[in-house]
C-alpha cells in the first residue's frame, strides 16, 4: 500500500465545512465568566491612575484587575525565547513585558485592565466606566525614526531604543571585495509591516478544577506545550503536571499564534483566583492591535559583481522594528532566520549583514509566514534584478550565471547554513517555460498597443525550514529545543492512533500524517486517527511553524513506526517460530521471508495486548511507541517564480496577468494539500506586494489600519489562477526526503511581483517601488510631475 504522493482529500474538511469544528470560542465551561480587556488608546502614556470603583459595582461584574493585582500576585512577565548578542558581545536588552500595564502603556492596544463579568456585554459596559488618567507623551512608531537623536525613548534604560546591534559575516572581507568589484549595485528598500489576520481571532479560556488542583487553558495556539512551558515556568509559576494546555481546532495562525500572549496568562490566573472559568475572545480590532505583527524592516543593500558578472560580495544593513516589547521569538527573526538566508540560491562568496533591532511604540513584531526569509529573499532578488538592469543583462541569465551548481551540494554558504540539496536551474527552467518567458516581448508590445504597461519578473528563493537542530539553535541563543515528538499507538484490533506534537491549524496534518501511517503500517486510512493539540494527551511537542511539520513531526512519526515494526517483528518471530532476522514487514503483513507464513499487524497487536503466547522474557506487552526526533539540519526548499503584470498608466491599476511557480519541496506526500499551501502562501505574498500595509501615524503612534475598511486583505478577485509545478531534489537527512511547503509562496511572491512592476515601468526610469505597490504609487511613477506632491 502506498498513500504517499496521492492527493487524498482532506479528512478534516468535513467537520470544518459543515460547521462541526470545535474552536476555542465554541467551548463553554459550566459557570463560565467573560473577560473584556481595556486597552490603551495611546501609544505612549504614563498611567497616573486607574479608577475602576464604578466598574466594579456595575451589574454582573465579578472582578476588575489592573497591573497592581498582577504585581501583587507575583505574576511574571512574558518571556522572550531567543537571546541575541550585539556585535560587542553584550546581550540584547530584554525589557519587562507585563501582562497588564505597570505604570505606563507603550503601544495602542497595550492591556491596562481586565473586567470579568457574567456576560461579555456586562464586562464591556463596565469597562467604559473605568477612568484611566493617562499622561500622554510623544511616541515613535517608525524604527528608523526611533534611532534619531532626540526621538522619544520607549525604555528609558535603553538609550537610542536599540535592543541589539547584531552582525554576521566578515565586514573587512566584504568591504575589500566591494572595493575591488567591477560594479556595485545599491538599493534602499523597506519591507512593509503586516498584520497576520488569521480568520479565527485569538481566544483563551482559563479553567481551574478545585478537586484536582489542575489548571486548564484552552487557547488558539500553534504549540500548546510551548505555551504550557512559558506560562507555567515564567509567568504563573505553576507545575507543568498541574497545567494542561489545549489548542483545539485553530483557524489559521501564520505565525501569530506561536507566541505566548498576555490574555492566556490573564484568564488562567483569573480562573484560579475566582474559581470559575474565564473566557476571552478577541474582537477583530483587538487582533489588529494585539496579535504580533510581521516584517517591518528598512534595509540598505549593496551587491558587488566582477567583470564576468559573478557576484563577489553582498552587504546588508537592516533596521528591524521590534515594537514596544519583545514577543516570544521576535529577536531571532531579523537575525538567524534572515541574515543566514542571504546567500539565496547564489555562490556569493562573502556576505556581511548587520541588524539593529529597535524598540518603537507599536505592537510587537514577530514571525509571520516566512519570518525573515521573505525579507531576505525580497532584498536579494530585488538587487539581483537591479544589477541585471544596470548591466543590460537578462535577469534569468544573470541568475543562472550565479546559481550554486547542482553538483555542488552539500553546499556551505558564507552565512552559516549548509544546503543539503537543490537544483535551481530546473525550477527556473520549469517556471520560465511555463510562463513563456521567451515570448514576453511580443506580449509587452501587444499591451503597449492598447496603452498598457506590461512587465515580467522573476524571483528565485531558498528557505531554511524544518527548524531545527536543537544544538545548533541553542548555540545561537535559542532558549528552547526544536525537536518534535510522536506516539504511534496500535490498538488491540489493529487501528492506530497517532499522537503528534505538530499542531494543525489549516495544514491538513490529519490527512498527510495519516497517509504516512497508512503507507508505513499498511493500515487503511479510515482506521488511523491523528490527535494533536492537547498537552494532556500528546507527548511533549514543539508545535507547528517554519514549515516543519512533515520534515520534523512527520519524521518523529516515522521513527515511532520504526519502533512498532521492530517490536512487531519480534512478536511475529515468536508466533511464527522463526528467526527475527527472517521476518519481513510489508503492506501490514509480517512474513517469514521466502514462505507464505505471515501474521497481520492486527494479529500482532492483539497478541501484544492479549499476551497469552508472548515472548515475555524479551518484550513488554503492548504496541505503543514514542519517538522524539531532533533534525540533523534545516531543510532547504527552493524555487523560481515568474510574475507577469499589466499596469494601466491612467489610473495605476495593476492586473496580475499570470503567475507561475515552480517549487522544490523534496518528496511530496499529498500534492493537493501542497498546492493549497502554495496558493495560500502566494495570496499572502501578493497581498504584501500589492495590498497589505500596517500604517501607524508617525507622530501619535495611532494605528491607522485597524479594520478591514483600511487594511486591504487579498481576495480571490485580486489573484490570478496560479500555474504550479514542482521539481524534487530530496532532502538528504530525513527518511522521507521532505522539505516543507508552507511558507514558500509568501517568500517568493513579493520579489517576483515587484520585479515585474519595475520591469513594466522601466521606460520611466523606475528603480524600485516600495510595497505595497498601490495604484497611486504606480500612477505617480508614470506621471513623475506628480511625484513632488507625495
Amino acid at each position, binding site marked *: 500500500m502506498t498513500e504517499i504522493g496521492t492527493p487524498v482529500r482532506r479528512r478534516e474538511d468535513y467537520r470544518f465545512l459543515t460547521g462541526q469544528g470545535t474552536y476555542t470560542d465554541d467551548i463553554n465551561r459550566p459557570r463560565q465568566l467573560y473577560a473584556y480587556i481595556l486597552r490603551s488608546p495611546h501609544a505612549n502614556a504614563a498611567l497616573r491612575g486607574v479608577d475602576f470603583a464604578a466598574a466594579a459595582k456595575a451589574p454582573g461584574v465579578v472582578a476588575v484587575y489592573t497591573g497592581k493585582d498582577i504585581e501583587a500576585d507575583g505574576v511574571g512577565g512574558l518571556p522572550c525565547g531567543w537571546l541575541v548578542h550585539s556585535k560587542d558581545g553584550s546581550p540584547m536588552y530584554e525589557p519587562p513585558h507585563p501582562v497588564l500595564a505597570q505604570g505606563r502603556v507603550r503601544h495602542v492596544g497595550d492591556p491596562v485592565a481586565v473586567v470579568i463579568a457574567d456576560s461579555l456585554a456586562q464586562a464591556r459596559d463596565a469597562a467604559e466606566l473605568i477612568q484611566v488618567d493617562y499622561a500622554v507623551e510623544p511616541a515613535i512608531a517608525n524604527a528608523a525614526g526611533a534611532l534619531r537623536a532626540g526621538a522619544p525613548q520607549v525604555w528609558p534604560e535603553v538609550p537610542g531604543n536599540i535592543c541589539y546591534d547584531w552582525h554576521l559575516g566578515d565586514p573587512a572581507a566584504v568591504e575589500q571585495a566591494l572595493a575591488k568589484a567591477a560594479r556595485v549595485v545599491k538599493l534602499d528598500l523597506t519591507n512593509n509591516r503586516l498584520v497576520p489576520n488569521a480568520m479565527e481571532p485569538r481566544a483563551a479560556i482559563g479553567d481551574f478544577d478545585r478537586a484536582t488542583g489542575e489548571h486548564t487553558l484552552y487557547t488558539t495556539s500553534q504549540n500548546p506545550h510551548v505555551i504550557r512551558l512559558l506560562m507555567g515556568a515564567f509567568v504563573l509559576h505553576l507545575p507543568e503536571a498541574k497545567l494542561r494546555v489545549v489548542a483545539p481546532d485553530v483557524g489559521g495562525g501564520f505565525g501569530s499564534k506561536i507566541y505566548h500572549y498576555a490574555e492566556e496568562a490573564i484568564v488562567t490566573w483569573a480562573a484560579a483566583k475566582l474559581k470559575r472559568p474565564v473566557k476571552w475572545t478577541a474582537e477583530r480590532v483587538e487582533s489588529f492591535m494585539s496579535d504580533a505583527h510581521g516584517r517591518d524592516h528598512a534595509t540598505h543593500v549593496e551587491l558587488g559583481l566582477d567583470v564576468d558578472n559573478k557576484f563577489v560580495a553582498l552587504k546588508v544593513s537592516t533596521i528591524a522594528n521590534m515594537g514596544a516589547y519583545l514577543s516570544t521569538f521576535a529577536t531571532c527573526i531579523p537575525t538567524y532566520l534572515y541574515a543566514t538566508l542571504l546567500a539565496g540560491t547564489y555562490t556569493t562568496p562573502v556576505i556581511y549583514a548587520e541588524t539593529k533591532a529597535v524598540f518603537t511604540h507599536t505592537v510587537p513584531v514577530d514571525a509571520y509566514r516566512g519570518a525573515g526569509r521573505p525579507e531576505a529573499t525580497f532584498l536579494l532578488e530585488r538587487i539581483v534584478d537591479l544589477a541585471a538592469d544596470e548591466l543590460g543583462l537578462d535577469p534569468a541569465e544573470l541568475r543562472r550565471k550565479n546559481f550554486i551548481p547542482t553538483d555542488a551540494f552539500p553546499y556551505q554558504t558564507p552565512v552559516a547554513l549548509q544546503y543539503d540539496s537543490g537544483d535551481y536551474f530546473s525550477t527556473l527552467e520549469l517556471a520560465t517555460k511555463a510562463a513563456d518567458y521567451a515570448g514576453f516581448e511580443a506580449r509587452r508590445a501587444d499591451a503597449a498597443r492598447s496603452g498598457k504597461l506590461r512587465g515580467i519578473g522573476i524571483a528565485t528563493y531558498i528557505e531554511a525550514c524544518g527548524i531545527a537542530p536543537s544544538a545548533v539553535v541553542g548555540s545561537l541563543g535559542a532558549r528552547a529545543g526544536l525537536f518534535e515528538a510522536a506516539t504511534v499507538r496500535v490498538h488491540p484490533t489493529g487501528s492506530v492512533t497517532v499522537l503528534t506534537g505538530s499542531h494543525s491549524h489549516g495544514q491538513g496534518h490529519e490527512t498527510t500524517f495519516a497517509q504516512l501511517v497508512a503507507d508505513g503500517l499498511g493500515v487503511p486510512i479510515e482506521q488511523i486517527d491523528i490527535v494533536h493539540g492537547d498537552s494532556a494527551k500528546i507527548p511533549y511537542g514543539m508545535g507547528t511553524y517554519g514549515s516543519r511539520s512533515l520534515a520534523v513531526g512527520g519524521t518523529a512519526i516515522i521513527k515511532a513506526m520504526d519502533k512498532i515494526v521492530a517490536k512487531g517483528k519480534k512478536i511475529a518471530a515468536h508466533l511464527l517460530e522463526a528467526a527475527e532476522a527472517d521476518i519481513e514487514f510489508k503492506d501490514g503483513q509480517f512474513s517469514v521471508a521466502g514462505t507464505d507464513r505471515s501474521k497481520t499487524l492486527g494479529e500482532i497487536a492483539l497478541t501484544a495486548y492479549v499476551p497469552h503466547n508472548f515472548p515475555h522474557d524479551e518484550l513488554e506487552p503492548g504496541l505503543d511507541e514514542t519517538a522524539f526526533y531532533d533534525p540533523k539540519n534545516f531543510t532547504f526548499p527552493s524555487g523560481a517564480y515568474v510574475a507577469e503584470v499589466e499596469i494601466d498608466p491612467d489610473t495605476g491599476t495593476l492586473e496580475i496577468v499570470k503567475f507561475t511557480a515552480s517549487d522544490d519541496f523534496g518528496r511530496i506526500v499529498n500534492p493537493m494539500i501542497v498546492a493549497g499551501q502554495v496558493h495560500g502562501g502566494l495570496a499572502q505574498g501578493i497581498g504584501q506586494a500589492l495590498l497589505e500595509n500596517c500604517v501607524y501615524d508617525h507622530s501619535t503612534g495611532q494605528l491607522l*489600519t485597524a479594520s478591514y475598511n483600511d487594511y486591504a486583505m487579498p481576495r480571490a478577485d485580486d489573484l490570478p489562477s496560479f500555474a504550479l509545478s514542482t521539481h524534487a531534489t530530496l532532502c538528504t537527512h530525513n527518511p522521507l526526503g521532505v522539505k516543507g511547503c508552507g511558507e514558500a509562496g509568501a517568500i517568493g511572491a513579493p520579489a517576483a511581483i515587484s520585479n515585474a512592476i519595475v520591469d513594466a515601468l522601466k521606460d520611466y526610469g523606475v528603480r524600485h517601488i516600495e510595497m505595497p505597490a498601490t495604484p497611486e504609487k504606480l500612477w505617480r511613477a508614470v506621471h513623475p510631475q506628480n511625484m513632488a506632491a507625495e
Partner: protein
Amino acid sequence: MYEFDYQKAASLDDAAKFLAAHDDAKLVAGGMTLIPTLKQRLAKPSDLVDLASIGSLKGIAEEAGGVTIGAMTRHVEVQRSDIVRRVIPALAALAGMIGDPAVRNRGTIGGSIANNDPAADYPAAVVGLGATVVTTKREISGDSFFTGMFETALGQDEIVTTVKFPKPQAAAYQKFKNPASRYAIVGVFVARTGQGVRVAVTGAGPCVFRVPEMEAALARSFSADAIKDIAIPDDGLNSDIHASAEYRAHLVGVMARRAVAACA
C-alpha cells in the same frame, strides 16, 4: 453593542410616529452600515425601528417611462431586476458593484441614501440620473437630498419610501474601488438626458457632487475628448492613506471619460 429596544414597525405611519416621539430612535433597513456601527459601540440608539415587514417599501416598478424602486429593495434585487436592466442598465450595474454578495443581499437603496456615506455608490446614481426621493412627507429632488457628509434633507420622523429614476438616453457608472473596503475611492455617474448631461461624483469629496464644467462640455459634445482638458481642483477633496486628494481629482477625470465612453 449597547442595549436598545427593538421595534418592529407594522406600517410607515407607526414608524414615523415612533420616530417623532423618540429622539434617539433610529431606523434600521438592511443594517449593513448600522449594525457594524452598533457593534463597535459608535452609536447608541434608544430603539431600532425595523422597516423590514412593511411590504409597501419593497419592489421595483416601471413608471412614467422610468423606474421606481421601493426604499427596502435590496441591492441584489436592483442588480438582477429585468426592469432595471432594460430601462437603466447602468443602475443595475452600479447595484452589482456595491460591497460584496453578503452586503448586496441585505443592504437596501433607502438605507444607503439615507445614510449618505461619502463613498457610497447610490448617491452618484440618484444625483447623476436626477432622481426624485419620495418620503412620507414630500418629494425631494436628488440634487437637494444629499446635504453633507452623512447628512441628508430628511427630517427626524421622515422616511424614504421610494426613489423615482427617470430613464436617461444613456448612462454609465465607473467606479475606482478602495482595495480594502471596496467602497468608491472615486465613482462617477454620467447620464445623458432630455434635460442635459449630468455628471455626479461620489467618493472623492465629503458628499456626492456634480461637475458643471464637464456637464456643459458634454452637452456641447458628448465625447470623452470633450472633457479631457477639464482639470478637477483637488481643493476640499478627501485625502487618506488610500488616495491623496490630488490622485482622487485625477481619477475623477479618468472615470468620467470612461463613463462617457461607456455610454456610447
